[in-house]
């Protein structure tokens, strides 16, 4: 047990830090969503050209063959400079690496890595949220599609982040019967320029449009876009959701650390920092961030020995607890200041923190997972 960088990790970190200091974009992040997105894409492409994408992917698909710790170092160093991270692509790739054919990997992974193609993920539906296995978006076989036949997709997806910008959608569809539950689900790649697709952005409680509803009506998908075997979609979804955790969590830690710093600065500017109760409260929320940091490092370290499993729900619940605690503290400390003259954008961050116990599997579902799969309580 040693939390210091190994000599290889230290070398990697030093090289990366030097490159970042010379190349990372500086200055304020654009508030316009389209500009913001363009900046992220440009930055992602720079990272890719410098060889800092796909760190933990196998070399034969364009990766660097490194491990989860190098991914974590990348996120840490990028966030250390306060720069936005590149596109989030890891979770789509991980399941592709496990389930996709050689041809599919060759076709899709380079675009995913370079950021030349954007992906969205079509999992949730209006009537299939926590109960994802009841999804109804139907894939009907149609031999007239493509050269070897395919499917026609009809149904509705929701909470699809970035659908309005996406070229491709990794979509869970029903190829079997509703009664088959998770056994009748398949994963397909849908070209978002196909006919029969309508995208309606959803306005969130923050007023922005981070995600969308996506409607499919007889949308054609050729057979070769099926990922894995028909009926294997559920396994695919589980792997994807498991890998949504991990290196990305390190990014959250950095984000929370900068929030704590911002909290202290703003408390000082509002003349609150001599108050012992205020100081204790800020120290208290900072402790949560350090606990989360060490917990995530431990989880990543465990991935060197075994694939991640149900215990990742601890990370998710802890992360949500830390984030909501931090933003509660901010709202309490600044009182009406966060509602009337919100220079620090605390209100927007506070609202966003309410999603932490909902997205990627609600806190209730995470607790069920822990109770049944980690603690062995009966179903």
């Amino acid at each position, binding site marked *: *047990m*040693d*939390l*210091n*960088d*190994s000599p290889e*990790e230290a070398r990697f970190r030093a090289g990366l830090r030097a490159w970042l200091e010379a190349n990372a974009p500086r200055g304020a992040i654009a508030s316009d969503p389209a500009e913001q997105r363009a900046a992220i894409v440009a930055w992602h492409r720079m990272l890719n050209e410098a060889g800092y994408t796909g760190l933990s992917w196998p070399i034969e698909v364009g990766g660097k063959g490194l491990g989860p*710790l190098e991914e974590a170092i990348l996120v840490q160093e990028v966030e250390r400079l306060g720069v936005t991270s590149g596109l989030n692509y890891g979770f789509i790739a991980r399941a592709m690496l496990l389930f996709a054919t050689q041809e599919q990997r060759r076709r899709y992974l380079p675009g995913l890595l370079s950021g030349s193609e954007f992906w969205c993920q079509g999992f949730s539906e209006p009537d299939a949220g926590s109960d994802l296995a009841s999804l109804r978006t139907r894939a009907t076989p149609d031999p007239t599609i493509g050269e070897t036949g395919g499917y026609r997709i009809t149904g509705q997806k929701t909470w699809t982040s970035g659908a309005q910008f996406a070229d491709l959608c990794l979509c869970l569809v029903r190829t079997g019967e509703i009664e088959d539950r998770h056994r009748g689900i398949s994963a397909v790649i849908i070209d978002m320029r196909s006919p029969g697709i309508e995208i309606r952005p959803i306005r969130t409680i923050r007023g922005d449009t981070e995600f969308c509803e996506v409607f499919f009506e007889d949308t054609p998908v050729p057979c070769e876009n099926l990922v894995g075997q028909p009926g294997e979609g559920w396994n695919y979804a589980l792997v994807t959701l498991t890998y949504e955790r991990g290196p990305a969590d390190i990014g959250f830690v950095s984000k929370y*650390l900068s929030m*704590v*710093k911002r909290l*202290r600065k703003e408390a000082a500017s509002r003349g609150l920092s001599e108050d*012992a109760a205020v*100081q*204790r409260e*800020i*120290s*208290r929320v*900072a*402790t*949560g961030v*350090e*606990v*989360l*940091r*060490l*917990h995530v*490092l*431990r989880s*990543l*370290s*465990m991935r*060197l*020995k075994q694939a991640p499993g149900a*215990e990742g*729900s*601890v990370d998710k*619940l*802890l992360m949500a*607890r830390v984030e909501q605690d931090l933003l509660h503290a901010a709202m309490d400390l600044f009182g009406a200041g966060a509602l009337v003259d919100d220079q620090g954008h605390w209100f927007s961050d506070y609202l966003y923190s309410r999603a932490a116990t909902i997205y990627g599997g609600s806190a*209730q579902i*995470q*607790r*069920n*997972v*822990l*109770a*049944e799969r*980690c*603690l*062995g*309580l*009966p*179903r």
Partner: protein
Amino acid sequence: MYFGFTEEQLAFGSLARKVATDISSASDSEGERFEVGSDALKVLGETGLHGLLIPEDQGGSGATLIEGAMFAEELGRALAPASVASSALICPTALPLIRDVSTRNDVAKAIARGEFCSVVVGSDLTWPPRGEGFAWGWQPGAIVLEADPEGLRPTRETEFAAILTQDLTLRIAPIGPLTTSTEHLVDSEVGKHFQAAVNVIASCLLLGCMRATLELAVAYANEREQFGAKIGTFQAIKHICADMLVDVESSHSIAYGAAALLTHSSEPLTAVRSAAIAKSWCGDAAVRVCESAIQVYGGIGFTWECPVHRYLRSALTLRSSFMNTTQSMDYLTKLDQWI
């Protein structure tokens, strides 16, 4: 970087669990375990764990604080007498505060031989002591490390009228008003290191408390039936247990993370900070976990017979001991270290 146990450490962990359990059952006198009985002394002597943190040239095994933390977790889990953690783990890390080298070596050798040792705290159980002094985890015959203007000084009075605490494993002995100021005990580098090491050890004792309590609650939820089903099938019970697991696993990460940083890190301030964070986090988490376990048990959890209240008592006294939660917050503010 590797945040996991080595094969040797895992083997040590199983040994530590066996020793801690044996000491506990051999010391049990109608559920009260203030004192290590003669049978338990034999167990300790045979394994040499008393000298775990004492350097090899002084008769100990020269292990790191990571092994110390593992032993603490097992002692906490087994509800072993606090005098064992005090002698085998806490006092050895306090030895650098004894200025005179030959005195220091004598105490080290005595601990490695299996003698008991206890360090002074204040009447509120915290360190550095203020006002009246009390020997934490005292048992008859123990060497007491008292504060003096130079640092710590061993004494061997045995005539204390020991006070029992609400913790059924902890006894403290009043050693009278302090005759010296004690700020110098925490301002020096060795003082800071001792404070951090005690925070880690107490955090791991708390972690052991939590793990045992969670296992008890889960076992009960798997057995007790109401409405024709095991109560563990109900989400109301599942979610309490899941939240307990989050507390336990996050406490493991911060407690061992701090132990590893204190053992290997080139940045002492980060390590000292993490140790203070561990103490406050594990203290609050352990009390929460014990209270939740009582809730899962229902009426049985409110009986003396149900073991959970013993853990709750330990969790509460350990949370207050050495550095309590409010003190941790003030310490962190003063440290002004935000990674």
